[in-house]
Each structure stands twice: as structure tokens, then as C-alpha cells.
């Protein structure tokens, strides 16, 4: 009997049933594809928005940090910034959208069963639009400045994977928390805003490490994206190799991801009662 299912009020799930999630892969695929399809539907300039936003952010950051503040970087400042911004924009997209994803699909959550984890997870794929566009801008700038990628580029996938897990971990936490506590809807934009400054996007991470006492530098790397952004940029251009503090970021990513999955499982069964 393969189709026997038992629902027992006294049994508690501690971790998501990954096998079940795999069985729902078609739904995962469809939801992801739906998000792709409708993302810029009904806007007049459509896909241009996806390019306009990072370009404007990039120009502002370069103007403020590169020109006004005069941050010295090995590669042109704009190139330096776009590398960090690409993985950061992926992270922030996934965090914002998976955070609100369960609430946004409450119509479905109330009316049908499927592993709820699929909803925030699908956003991790959709976020690659933003990532890809920023990377494209970066490639264009690299050609313009005549800079070729460093030999560390083989490490890039590693940092991208770290970025995915960081984004998913935070996103899964937020999606579950927002169901219970709507306050988090207001917390997330705030987090994105702060994150843009406390993450070494427009300035090198050494600045922070040098100017802060040791204990504070460790706290700085508790921001999972600090290590990811620094490492990703290093894999692109070779400057400022991540120090031992990157293990703090790796550790926090693993912690957030696993605890997020566990918390999600704990509240998953009752999500439909709260949304």
C-alpha cells in the first residue's frame, strides 16, 4: 500500500518531509513558472523595470561611496559595487518575496493541501532573474573596463550556493513568522534597507574589520551576507580575500537554514488556521 496516509494529532513533525516535497516537484515548477510569467505583467515598460532598478541603485551607490566618500578599490568602484550588489539583490528579492509568500497565497493555503515549504522555496528560483540581470550589467562593465575575471572564479558557485541558502533560510523563517505575526511585514523592508549598508556592497569588508574592535567585527559577520558578498567579489576580482571571519557567516547560514526548516515544520500544520 503506497498510498496509505496517517494523520495523527499527537505526532509532531520536526523537519520537513523532503521526499514529499520532491513528489510535489511539478507544483514547485508550476508556481515558479507562474511567478516568472506574471512578474511584470500589466506594467507598461515590463521587463525594463528589472534592469532599471539595479542600474539606478548602482549609480547612486557609486556616486555616494565612490565619488563623495572616495572609497578606494582595486577595480573601478562601479565594478566593485555591482559584484556585491548582484548577489545582494538576489538575497533581498528572495527575502522579501518568500517572507510574504505564504500570506500572498492564502487562497491556496486555505483550500488545498501541499507541502507549504514549496511556496517560499519557489521564490529562490524566481530571484535568479534579478541576479542574472545584475551579472549581465557586471559583464558589460567588465568588457567596458577591459577587466577579466580572476582565477578564483571557480569558487563563485560556492558563494552563490551560500547565498541561496542564506536567502532561503531567512525567507523560510520570515514566511512562517509572518503568518503568525503580521508585524514582520513591516520588519522586512527595514531589514533590506539596513542590510544594504551593513553588508560590504559599496565598500570593502576590511573597512569594517579594521575600524571595529574584534568582538564587533565578529558581530559584523553575523550578517550572513557579509561573508557571501565579500567572497563572491573575491572570486570575481581577486581582491580582499575573505579571512577566518567568513566561517562566522557560514555558521550562521547553516544555523538559520536548519532552524528555519524546523520552525516551519512546527507551524506548517496550523498555517491555514492563521492566514
Amino acid at each position, binding site marked *: 500500500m503506497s498510498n496509505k496516509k*496517517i494523520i495523527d494529532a499527537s505526532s509532531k513533525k520536526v523537519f520537513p518531509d523532503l521526499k514529499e516535497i520532491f513528489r510535489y516537484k511539478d507544483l514547485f515548477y508550476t508556481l515558479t513558472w507562474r511567478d516568472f*510569467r506574471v512578474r511584470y505583467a500589466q506594467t507598461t515598460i515590463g521587463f525594463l523595470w528589472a534592469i532599471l532598478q539595479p542600474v539606478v541603485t548602482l549609480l547612486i551607490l557609486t556616486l555616494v561611496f565612490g565619488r563623495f566618500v572616495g572609497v578606494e578599490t582595486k577595480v573601478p568602484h562601479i565594478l566593485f559595487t555591482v559584484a556585491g550588489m548582484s548577489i545582494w539583490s538576489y538575497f533581498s528579492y528572495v527575502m522579501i518575496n518568500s517572507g510574504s509568500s505564504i500570506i500572498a497565497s492564502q487562497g491556496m493555503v486555505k483550500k488545498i493541501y501541499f507541502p507549504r515549504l514549496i511556496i517560499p522555496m519557489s521564490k529562490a528560483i524566481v530571484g535568479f532573474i534579478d541576479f542574472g540581470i545584475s551579472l549581465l550589467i557586471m559583464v558589460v562593465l567588465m568588457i567596458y573596463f577591459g577587466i577579466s575575471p580572476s582565477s578564483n572564479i571557480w569558487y563563485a558557485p560556492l558563494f552563490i550556493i551560500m547565498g541561496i541558502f542564506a536567502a532561503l533560510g531567512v525567507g523560510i523563517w520570515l514566511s512562517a513568522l509572518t503568518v503568525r505575526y*503580521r508585524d514582520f511585514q513591516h520588519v522586512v523592508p527595514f531589514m533590506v534597507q539596513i542590510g544594504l549598508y551593513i553588508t560590504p556592497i559599496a565598500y570593502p569588508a576590511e573597512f569594517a574589520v579594521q575600524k571595529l574592535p574584534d568582538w564587533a567585527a565578529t558581530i559584523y559577520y553575523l550578517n550572513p551576507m557579509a561573508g557571501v558578498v565579500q567572497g563572491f567579489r573575491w572570486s570575481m576580482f581577486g581582491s580582499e580575500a575573505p579571512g577566518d571571519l567568513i566561517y562566522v557567516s557560514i555558521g550562521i547560514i547553516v544555523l538559520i537554514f536548519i532552524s528555519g526548516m524546523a520552525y516551519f515544520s512546527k507551524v506548517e500544520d*496550523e498555517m491555514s488556521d*492563521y492566514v
Partner: protein
Amino acid sequence: MSDVAIKIEGVSKKYTIGKQKENSLRGSFGGLLKSAAAKGEEFWALKDISFEVNKGEVIGVIGKNGAGKSTLLKVLSQITKPTEGRIEINGRVASLLEVGTGFHPELTGRENIYLNGTILGMSRKEVKAKFDEIVDFSGVDKFIDTPVKHYSSGMYVRLAFAVAAHLEPEILIIDEVLAVGDAEFQKKCLGKMKDVAETGRTVIFVSHNMAAVEKLCSKCFLLNHGNLEFSGTSSETISKYLNSSKLNQYFWERSQSSDNKAYFTSIKVYQDGQLDITTSGKLKVEFKYQIQEKLSSLNLHLALLDNYGQVIFSSAPEDSGIKKSLEIGNYASIVEFPEDLLFPIGYSLKLILWDHVAGSFIHHDVNEKIRFKPIETQSLINKTSGGRSGILAVKCNWKIE
């Protein structure tokens, strides 16, 4: 292999009312400080429900609003977890608590078929295989590549139901989805449901439409305040439900004034010299109405309804050759039913009046406010040897030569 499709043991579901406050951070922090007594009121939507459903059975679940029907379906379809108890399900389940779950207005009909199909548990391959059938059933083939936001609501519902109708689960859980669409489409849906039932699949069906339940289901569960009050054959359970929920109501009076240009103010049913309505004698319906604007022609109808809310017959002033216009004012009418007409079963009344006045349409009705179940006394029914069948005892003229 057992023949049990669903086995439920001692299932209860508790909700806490007034959770809004707790739903915020402040509520949660506050909750830590205050005693547990400050928490919301507990409410048991289901209380200790146990039953078994065999494979191939078509089960109806009936009960008043708030009796726990929807909660039962939600628990069965795993949307929410029971607070207590255990459920065992043998077979692939599809639940249909709504048609068109997950439909996205910006997507085309074709895209929504895939979307909705996978949400309901089909694989993309299955949807692809049945795609033509689904489109055919829905009858929207011309607009299949148009975004569904441009669909009429009828088309939307038809497409959504078409997807659902092509699910092939072993156990199907359905909530009131037939309450949508036009009459013709509803008929089509009922037909499809009947097909599903006849292929030996297990179906659990919640509905307020007693006629549909009686037609489709072999067995019924009656829920009341979260308890499983009765289970038995459909007709048994339905009559139990109808008897428990509809008490005699001999008098109705309008509680507030109306904006209507003409409206009923009170209705009363009685039999001369009787306290209760009985099966013998003449039933009289006395009703009062107020006319606020001159009516060129009075259209007045009185209908007798059965327990299902379906009209048995209707009558109008023309029966007595009355046809007239009405000036502004208060009026009263008495309608006398033929003698010995009623059975000892539940009836209700509907009154309608309408008119066209200078382009504006006046319409007022009072539906099922009056209900009664005649007490069986000496009348045509028991005077006939072998009793009588039907819902009305009509005296006809006989000749035997």
C-alpha cells in the same frame, strides 16, 4: 487489503476565538506577562468524531452552517491538523473545497489549466494528457489563449470545474462546489459527479442542496455543533436533519420598515378552531401588505414549498377571478387552501408581489419565513386503505363502471 478508505478515530478540532490580538507581536509579548486566562475563548469545531468510510461509498455530510462540515473536510484533506485523534486514509486523495484554486487572472486559460491541475495534485504529464478533454468539457476553447481576467464569471467557473472534473483520485473530497454556475452547467457537474461515484471511487460530499445529496449519496453523516449526531441512509439522515432544524413557525411579522414601494408586513397560517396545523380541514393563510405607490396591476403569488425549498404549487388572485389595480394603502388577504390537502410533512410558504411602475420594477418576496409540519389527524391520508403516497392529498373525482 482492507476495504476501508477512511478511518477516523476520536477526531477533534479546537479553534481559539478572538485570536486577532495574539496574532501580533504585542499580543504575544503581552501573553507572556498576563495569565493564561486572558487568552481567547476556546471553540471546538469538531468533537470526538469517529467513523469509517468503505471504498466506493459516496458519503454526504450535512448540517447547519457552523456545524463543523467544512472543518471536517479541511481535516480530512490535511489542510489543517486535528487537535486530537487519528485519521487513516487509504488511497490518493484529491480535495475540492473551491473551484479554481490558484487561478491567476493574468494567465491564459491554457496556463491556468496547468496551474490549477498541478495545484490539485495532477502531474504536468497528466494535465497534458487530459488537456483536450478538459477544454472540451469547459466549452471555452475559443478563448483558451485569452487571459482569464477577460472571462465572464460563468466561463471562469466552467473552466475551473472542468479541471477539477478530470482529477482521478481514489478518494474525492468535495465542498459545495456545485453551488456555482448556471443551472445547465450545474446539471452537467452533477452528472459528472454521478459518473465519478459510479466508477467505484470514494466520495465525500458536503452540501446544502438536499436534492443533490439524496441523489448522489448512499450514506450520510449529520453534524451538529461539531458532533456526529446521526449517520444512516441518505433519506433517513436528511429527514432527521430537516425535522430537527425546521420548527413550526405559524406567524411572521416585518420587524422594520422597508424601502420597497410595496411590501408584506405580516403573514399568518391557521386553521379555524385549531391551535396547531393538522392534516384535516382547510388551511388559511392571512397576510397583510402595504402599497406605497399606486399599482397598475397587482401581481401576487402564494406558493407552497416542500422541505427542500422547492415549489409544490403556487396560487394567485386570478384563481378567484380577481384582477385589479391598487391604490396606496394597507391591504389584507386571506387565502383558503382546499380541504384535507396536507401530508404530515414539513412545508413552507413563499409570498411574492411585483409590478412594473413607470419603468421601475417593484418586487418583494417573503421566503420560507412560515414553516409548519401538520399533525396527523383523521383526513384523506389515513382514510384511504393502504395510505397515500406523495406530498399532497388531492381529492379527485372517480368513476368505476
